[in-house]
């Protein structure tokens, strides 16, 4: 009977281990293998082991650094704005007492639309000649501009669209955090005559630190992989000013058909994301201790 129990235990674990192997480990090893080959789909007769040439080419290519820089700029500015707006909204929500659920559900709508639809909606809104955004700006006398078509504004515009879509996520996570805070410290603070600003700075933010870190990590990982919004809105243009790393890898693989270089680039990027996430999570754990 005892032996049976041990076996059953392992049986239960095997499916998840096997799924991990197939879904996670196998593609990783397979793409590692591909990344060591000169592997261009349209050149089936010209395929050979080239060891680290793909890595070398990717690392020597200035486009890689451009993509990396764009991704970092995009991710960090978006997550920063989402955190600020999300916190403000969550704080306001926690202070009002009526229509709370209705307001929250309305604010969450953008999050539920697929990124492709978001991209198409905003492309139309921002159409330089026929879009409503420039029309309204014209009326108040500011005058519109081609937001997605000019190099100086394209990335910022994409960031704002992402902020519009994903601030509700930050809001809902932080709102849940706010609700879970104990009441006593606030009562004590009010008796001591603390202002709302002091309450936020000395009580809410320190107590919410872990939740903020988790929300930021989740959003960052998501943002670092951004592909669909870019694909619909700008396709990396104008020039390469909005080419994120995921879009760059997509181009290497699916436009140039260079699977070797695409795998090498994704590998380097995975390593980078893993390091960044590990760093943030260690900080989180240290905070707990």
């Amino acid at each position, binding site marked *: 009977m005892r032996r049976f129990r041990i076996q059953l235990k392992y049986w239960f674990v095997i499916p998840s281990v096997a799924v991990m192997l197939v*879904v996670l480990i196998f593609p990783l090893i397979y793409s590692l293998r591909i990344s060591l080959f000169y592997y261009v789909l349209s050149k*089936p007769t010209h395929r050979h082991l080239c060891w680290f040439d793909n890595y070398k080419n990717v690392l020597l290519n200035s486009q890689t650094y451009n993509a990396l820089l764009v991704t970092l700029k995009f991710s960090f500015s978006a997550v920063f704005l989402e955190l600020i707006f999300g916190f403000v909204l969550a704080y306001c929500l926690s202070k009002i007492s009526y229509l709370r659920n209705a307001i929250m559900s309305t604010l969450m709508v953008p999050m539920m639309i697929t990124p492709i639809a978001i991209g198409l909606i905003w492309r139309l809104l921002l159409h330089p000649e026929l879009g409503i955004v420039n029309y309204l700006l014209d009326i108040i006398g500011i005058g519109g501009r081609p*937001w997605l078509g000019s190099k100086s504004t394209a990335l910022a515009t994409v960031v704002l669209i992402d902020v519009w879509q994903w601030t509700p996520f930050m809001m809902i996570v932080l709102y849940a955090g706010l609700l879970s805070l104990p009441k006593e410290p606030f009562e004590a603070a009010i008796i001591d005559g603390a202002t709302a600003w002091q309450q936020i700075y000395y009580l809410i933010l320190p107590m919410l630190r872990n939740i903020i870190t988790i929300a930021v990590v989740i959003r960052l990982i998501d943002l670092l992989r951004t592909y669909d919004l870019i694909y619909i809105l700008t396709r990396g243009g104008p020039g390469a000013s909005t080419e994120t790393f995921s879009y760059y890898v997509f181009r290497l*693989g699916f436009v140039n058909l260079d699977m070797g270089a695409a795998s090498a680039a994704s590998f380097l990027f995975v390593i980078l994301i893993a390091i960044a996430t590990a760093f943030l999570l260690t900080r989180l754990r240290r905070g707990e201790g």
Partner: protein
Amino acid sequence: MKKKMQRSLLQTLIAVLLIASVTSCQPTTPAPTPAVEATHTPAPPTPAKRVTLNILMETVPDTEYVQRLVPQFEKETGIKVNIEALTYVAMHEKLIPQLSAKQGDYDIIVVDKQWVGEFVGADWLLPLDNYIAADSFDTSVYIPAMFNMLGQVKGTTYMLPFYNYTMGLVYRTDIFEDPDIQTEYKAKFGKPLEVPTSVEEFVQIAKFLTRDEDGDGKVDLYGITQQLARGVGIHAEWANLFFSLGGWYYDENWNATVNGEEGVKALEYLIDLYKNAAPEGATGYDFDEQAQVMKQGKAATMITYSWMLAQLDNPEQSKVAGKVALAVMPGGHGVQGGWGWAIPRSAPHPDAAWKFLSWVESFEIAKQRALMGGQPTRFDVLRDPEVLKAYPYFDVIEKMIATAKPVPIFGGCAAMVDILARELSEAVAGGKDPQQAMDDAAAEMNELVIGDPLVSK
């Protein structure tokens, strides 16, 4: 009991694995796992079973015309046809995993001119010569320029030309014939305003026609509307000028030549047109946004695809219907464009697929498509009196096709267009030096041809 439990656990495990492997098709795993193939049960076409043909096409007018005629084919043959239409950019990425698998979902695909070298080089398309011989299908009816680009590659027929989208100049007849504008032009340049026949003249006219008609300090008629978003559009805008100035991508030894005098000059003209004659937002436009500006009556010219005129001339869609005409690209050489029908090697029902191809490309059906507004690839359709009566400008299109230049047929063609699009966009929207942009593009283009099966160095 124990064995039974183990077996059912195993079954669950296998089911989970199958589902997981199907959903894990990510860009980092280009090759299909064996499990993907196992989920497709290869069903050989038996007469008793009703065959369904899956076709992947682009969301363009010519696809609509085919869709309207398909019920005829279904009635005649009993074969069901399912057409999936996607936007241009979505098609390529959907096709790659399908084509590189042993068994795919699509029986028929349409191939853009710039994918021909890639798909043929990777050996993804089924040669049609046996079918053509068995059916004695006549391919000599096709315009040679079309058949050489979208039919055969190095003597083997892989495709049947579907429709042309060769590029030319669309201009507003009411503006070019306006006596006031004509007098003003003559006073300024000392010659009458006519449809331009050289690139220099075209740029001059486009800049001249850009004007503020109601005097509010803002341009309300643009000399040209362009498609300068990073993608195939900006490449086409440049290539039209490039070809007309006498340029070409590679020399006879496959060394890139885009950074020569013509390539840089074409880019400088493109920037000149954008800065002085086109809407500022054009750097974000694709062809539909570009055409919107024309349809609203806010532009005097555009360089566009042959099928666009039918839309611009349709009063339901366009404010300038009846006031537009088509001409050969100023300078004489537009970009040759077209799509070909092909059967992928991974097609589940190749025989039924050929049946559809020989039907859709028959004279009768090709003519019906042309009468709806489709763009012919066959001489007999293009010159058919009934078709010419409905679309008198088809004689211009015949001239456009005869003078246009195709992109080079090799595996790196789509990648080449992508490289050029990025550098052109850098120069037009980002202020990169034209010579530098073209030098950078040329350097990358030289790497593309290495090891390509269709390149003979």
